[in-house]
């Protein structure tokens, strides 16, 4: 049975429930109290990690690496949780994880780290990541990382990967209008930018967590500083739009009346 070397690129982002405010006091903007904000593994990258772990479990001999760029202290905090979800080996890069850095510089750092993974078989490589991040949200880093590694079979918005008996990869990608595109690739190496996939978030597994943490802590200690800035990029402005609306609250009104008002609103262009 064919086995894979799966490298998942995934950084950390502020917890989605946090209120975010930009700070523009340097060439690369940041978030107010950025280091204090609770962080999570980027949601789409997390889906990629769960899919990778699931595939590796089905394919004996496969291995999963998680390559993550972020401030070392924040990575350690997030890994305490993520490490309980799925078996992987961490490759940590100590650098900024904010959304205002440039995708090309992040890609350069990631590609260099991947090239440095000992024992990685590039002929069996599946390069996974989220199709976009919850920070920059550009959907550009994975393509650029793939190009730097010479991978020209790339897929974005992936919801499903199937390995056929012949070893070909059948991939379902999101396209316009709520549809999927099905493609077939001869085999690795490929880049897959995952959307949500079909798997639920795995429950915490303390045994997996303990096994992972034996590797995570040394990986964090070994984390190389990575430069990921925004050379040549000028931010003229960054602002949070005014979102407060004057909400008219309608209560103690019969459902018929509400329905009539809604239908009139829907019908009037």
């Amino acid at each position, binding site marked *: 049975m064919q086995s894979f070397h799966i490298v998942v690129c995934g950084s950390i982002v502020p917890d989605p429930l946090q209120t975010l405010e930009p700070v523009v006091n340097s060439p690369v903007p940041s978030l107010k109290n950025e280091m204090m904000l609770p962080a999570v593994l980027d949601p789409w990258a997390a889906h990629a990690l769960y899919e990778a772990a699931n595939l590796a479990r089905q394919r004996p001999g496969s291995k999963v690496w998680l390559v993550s760029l972020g401030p070392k202290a924040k990575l350690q905090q997030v890994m305490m949780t993520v490490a309980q979800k799925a078996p992987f080996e961490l490759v940590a890069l100590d650098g900024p994880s904010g959304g205002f850095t440039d995708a090309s510089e992040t890609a350069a750092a990631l590609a260099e780290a991947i090239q440095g993974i000992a024992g990685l078989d590039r002929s069996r490589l599946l390069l996974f990541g989220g199709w976009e991040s919850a920070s920059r949200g550009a959907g550009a880093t994975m393509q650029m990382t793939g190009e730097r590694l010479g991978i020209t079979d790339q897929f974005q918005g992936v919801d499903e990967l199937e390995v056929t008996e012949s070893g070909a990869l059948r991939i379902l990608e999101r396209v316009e209008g709520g549809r999927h595109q099905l493609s077939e690739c001869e085999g690795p190496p490929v880049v897959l930018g995952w959307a949500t996939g079909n798997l639920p978030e795995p429950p915490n597994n303390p045994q997996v967590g303990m096994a992972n943490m034996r590797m995570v802590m040394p990986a964090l200690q070994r984390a190389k500083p990575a430069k990921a800035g925004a050379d040549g990029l000028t931010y003229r402005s960054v602002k949070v739009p005014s979102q407060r609306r004057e909400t008219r609250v309608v209560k103690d009104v019969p459902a018929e009346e509400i329905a009539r008002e809604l239908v009139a*609103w829907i019908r009037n262009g």
Partner: protein
Amino acid sequence: METILVLAHVEADGTLGRPAREAIAAARAVREGLAGSSLVVGLAGAGAGAAAPQTASCGAARWLAVEGPEFGEPRYATDAAAAQALAEAASAGLVIAASTSRWARTLAGVAQRLGGRVDTHVTGVAAAQGKVAVSRWFYRQRMEAEIERAQRPWFILVDPGCFQPWAGEPGPVAVERVAASGSSRTRFVEYREPVSGEQTIRPDAELLFVAGAGWTKKQPDGKTHTEQAGALILDFLRKSRASLGSSKSLVDLGSEGHAVLPFLTHMNQVGQTGSTPRHPKGLATCCHGEEPHVVGWRFVNERRAVNLDPNCGWAQGKADVLYVADAFTVMAKVDELLG
């Protein structure tokens, strides 16, 4: 002097889609703001050369085409090869394209090949005094930035729905054929419609209807009424032709084995890990939570909500009208009135 290449892929029927014409409008706006700049149209696809006359009056100085059946297939290797060849042939400093699934999959990689940079999900472009700036959102539509770049080529992918599509008279044009590699290890198999068989996502709909997790919770009689909820929602969608969105929590319930609305998938999800659709109106039902919903509703203009909590953090200050009522009863009446 800046050379602006507008990239478009030709649809299967030989036409240029609305997103491509929006990209042409964006490119024209940039050209008008940059004195001495020129516009080049670059087309890729099976019948790219034959489609070029559709853009005859867009003000382009040159028309380039990479064509052949292999470039009709939506896949990275051939789309990237075509875009690279067109950008090189045009000596483009700015490359503007619509953020279709094909170009979104491809152009960041092409920018990397050519030593350039890319900005995606661009919602506005401005050009004045020799400088170009684009607007795009960060942190899942929570903050908007206006940015400039020094590097060239600069690939700019404009989000569909942000520009009035260009329209003009067709006419004869001189098309320059450009060669590109058509080889790929990947083949396109087919497009697949939603598994539910029910068309619930309609990007062009006037109205976005968002179903929250409240539809599957216990009702006043102490029981859940998921089937009734599903029937009410589908009836509403058929009658109103609305597009269906869902909160993450409702979609997640399905993958966790709970009773859910069977026609909902992650494709319907709006918000932090879903889409941020553009619709003139939005109606939220049984939705709670705050920030993640704000993200999903960023580009919905008129917003109304039906739920039982008058202090709901999502609706207060985010919706224009909040109806404090039972969504089951209200939507049954709405369906009735829509006939």
